[in-house]
């Protein structure tokens, strides 16, 4: 037993010594604090992706993270914090220390999430600093190649005459695909929304002929059209899509603009250290100006669409206003 005590003594001594060394280190840290802003970043940065790994949002964020690392000279670690359609990840980001070391991927559904009274969220756009917009993807509709509808004009005339007959597969409730259908219904075009668990299920359901139309990103539809699997039907925008130049827009078909798109960017907590924000903004802009990054995103069907912090913030406020109007929230 005595021997053991002796051993324990040694361990204790070692622990005390180690502790002393550690405190010594941490004490020296505050000395650097003054220059903290100028030498940001000096430790790894966490990029929270509020979706599961492997999806197109995640891949887009990872492609950015890879280049941000070179730009900032620090590792950018992607952390997939999933749940509640992204809100769990966003909450984690908003509650993080506003020191510029925690960012998150931002999406328009952030706004849908807190506007929807059912969700009872207690945070909103005021709790984040929007850094830059990264991707915008216009929504489009596609049908099976043998579909009886030749073009969107014909289709929408049929819809108007037969309310609730034509079905559209969406990737989920309150997605941009669903909200566009609500907007169309208000204009007198009532269609059946079939909500699936995601893009691939929506597509499968349409390919199998169980629904008439699938609502997806224009980039994905471009690839399907190339393969001859699906036929593009309409672009939900006021101008034609770069990916589908020959496809009519909804505005061309019914005269009113019904737009739907996905737009993603990057955000950090509100009141983040201004120096860090500036550094991040500059780095993000530089990556998005790099043609190599644009090309690798393009291959994934993701269209890089840069906006700086101020423009992106205005853009999101505008999305908020429109969504309130359409949904009556």
């Amino acid at each position: 037993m005595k021997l053991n005590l002796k051993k324990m003594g040694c361990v204790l001594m070692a622990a005390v010594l180690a502790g002393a060394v550690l405190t010594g280190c941490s004490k020296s840290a505050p000395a650097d604090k003054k220059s903290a802003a100028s030498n940001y970043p000096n430790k790894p940065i966490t990029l929270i992706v509020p979706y599961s790994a492997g999806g197109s949002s995640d891949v887009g964020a990872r492609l950015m993270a890879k280049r941000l690392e070179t730009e900032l000279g620090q590792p950018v670690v992607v952390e997939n914090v999933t749940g509640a359609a992204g809100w769990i990840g966003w909450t984690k980001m908003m509650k993080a220390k506003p020191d510029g070391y925690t960012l998150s991927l931002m999406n328009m559904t952030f706004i849908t999430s807190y506007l929807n009274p059912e969700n009872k969220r207690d945070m909103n756009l005021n709790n984040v600093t929007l850094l830059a917009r990264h991707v915008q993807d216009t929504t489009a509709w596609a049908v099976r190649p043998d579909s009886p509808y030749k073009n969107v004009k014909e289709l929408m005339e049929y819809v108007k005459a037969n309310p609730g007959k034509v079905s559209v597969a969406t990737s989920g409730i309150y997605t941009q695909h669903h909200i566009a259908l609500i907007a169309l219904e208000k204009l007198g075009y009532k269609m059946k929304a079939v909500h699936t668990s995601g893009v691939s299920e929506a597509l499968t359901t349409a390919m199998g002929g169980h629904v008439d139309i699938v609502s997806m990103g224009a980039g994905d539809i471009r690839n399907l059209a190339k393969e001859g699997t699906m036929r593009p039907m309409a672009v939900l925008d006021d101008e034609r899509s770069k990916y589908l130049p020959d496809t009519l827009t909804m505005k061309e078909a019914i005269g009113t603009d019904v737009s739907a798109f996905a737009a993603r960017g990057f955000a950090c907590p509100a009141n983040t250290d201004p120096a860090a924000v500036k550094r991040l903004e500059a780095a993000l802009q530089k990556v998005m100006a790099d043609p190599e990054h644009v090309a690798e995103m393009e291959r994934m069907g993701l269209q890089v669409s840069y906006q700086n912090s101020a423009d992106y913030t205005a853009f999101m406020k505008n999305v908020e206003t429109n969504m309130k109007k359409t949904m009556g929230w």
Partner: protein
Amino acid sequence: MEALGYLLQGLDTAVSGWNLLYALIGVTFGMLVGVLPGLGPTAGTALLLPLTFGMSPVAAVIMLAGIYYGAMYGGTITSVLINTPGESASLITCLDGYPMARQGRAGTALGVAAIGSFIGGMFALGLLIFVGPLVAQQALKLGPPEYFALVVVGLSLLVGLMGKSLVRGLIGALFGLTLAFIGIDSVTGTMRFTFGQTDLEDGLEFVSLAMGLFGLSEIFMTAEENLHAQATKPPKIQNMLPRRDEWGPALKSILRGSALGSLIGLVPGTNSVIPTILSYSIEKKVAKDPSRFGKGAIEGVAGPETANNAYAGAALIPLFTLGIPSSPSVAILLGAFIMHGLTPGPTLMQKNPEFVWGVIASMFIGNLILLVMNLPLANVWAQITRIPFRILLPNILIIMAVGSYSINNRLFDVGMMLAFGILGYFMKKVQFPLGPVLLTYVLGKILETSLMKSLTIFNGSFMGFFQRPISATLLVIAISIIAVSLYFGAKDKGIEGDSEM
């Protein structure tokens, strides 16, 4: 036989250069994520996806596909040894695999699972090569109404898994269905039973639920029973091959499992649990002595384990031939295709034959590697049961906690696992069967969403289900199964009581 020529060319691609090494890395990593509860093939493929940026497309997909089917082999190990499914496809293996391990036959259970997995995988690959494009197109015709009918068949067969008491089994099944309600309603967007908790909005995390109810409760039971009983050495581990009289039945269940798993794998929108449930139920129905099930019947391991591998292989058919991912892990493979500049779809096989056939050939090799890795190693893994509990249990506990955290990177899931572990402990004490709870939980989610989607398509009319040939047939089968069970149940009551149930 044109396909065979392509396959030989593919074999050339698969063994040349670094591709063989990538297949080895892929399947080894897949085994590993399969073994660790919590980490599954989806997380595994996603983790290694960024590493493939610099690789050639064929090498990248060979490696990622290896993780995907490798995990199906690994998931069995924890189910058999510690009654904790490594992932959902191996859940049903717990029912008979774990009793086998307790009888000292862990090696046999793992061995037969490895053989079955290999045959199932090969069967699905054969299907992919010879009839893939043809059947995949047909499988698309199965939509939400057919999924609904398929799940109803699955539920009607659940009676076979109820354990000793039908009443307790039914209560368990209803409890599982109730748990499936938690979270957002996919059609109306209403929050159900979330009590204002953001963490509950997506419902309960299946893996945490399964690890808690099955695994953790088992740890509590074991801790209570024999943490101090050091003297009782675990039984000596026997041969990893089945006994001579078991070969016949085991091989038959492997063949049935192969066919069943491949068929269901073709249908996008199903999940890997459905073929395992169907396989287990069918094995129990055709067995000469169904009472052995739940007590270490080898068919109860061989059938489902084969079915989930055949399912995994067949699920790649829609990916290669139509560009449709049928599960989240396959969706990541699809992402890898696109990232490397390949457009998945009907023309992929014509445009990039060397890619497609290279990957297919590598899967033959990968399955072979896995068989070699698993069969002799079955006994090595089985040695885990000989580690004293006081050392083994805390370690399993740590792995499980890390595993359940890693799914969504949130502590909530770990807490939930603990809560369900305690619940599972008490349920075991009063002999509530836990299988029905988890199975109805998995099926309940598909049941509800497919029902709602179908009703939207049918404008709210239930008759629609009977106007489509496949869903009508399946529903009639389900109704007959229930009617027959009820009839025989009532008839046998006087003689046997509910012992058979």
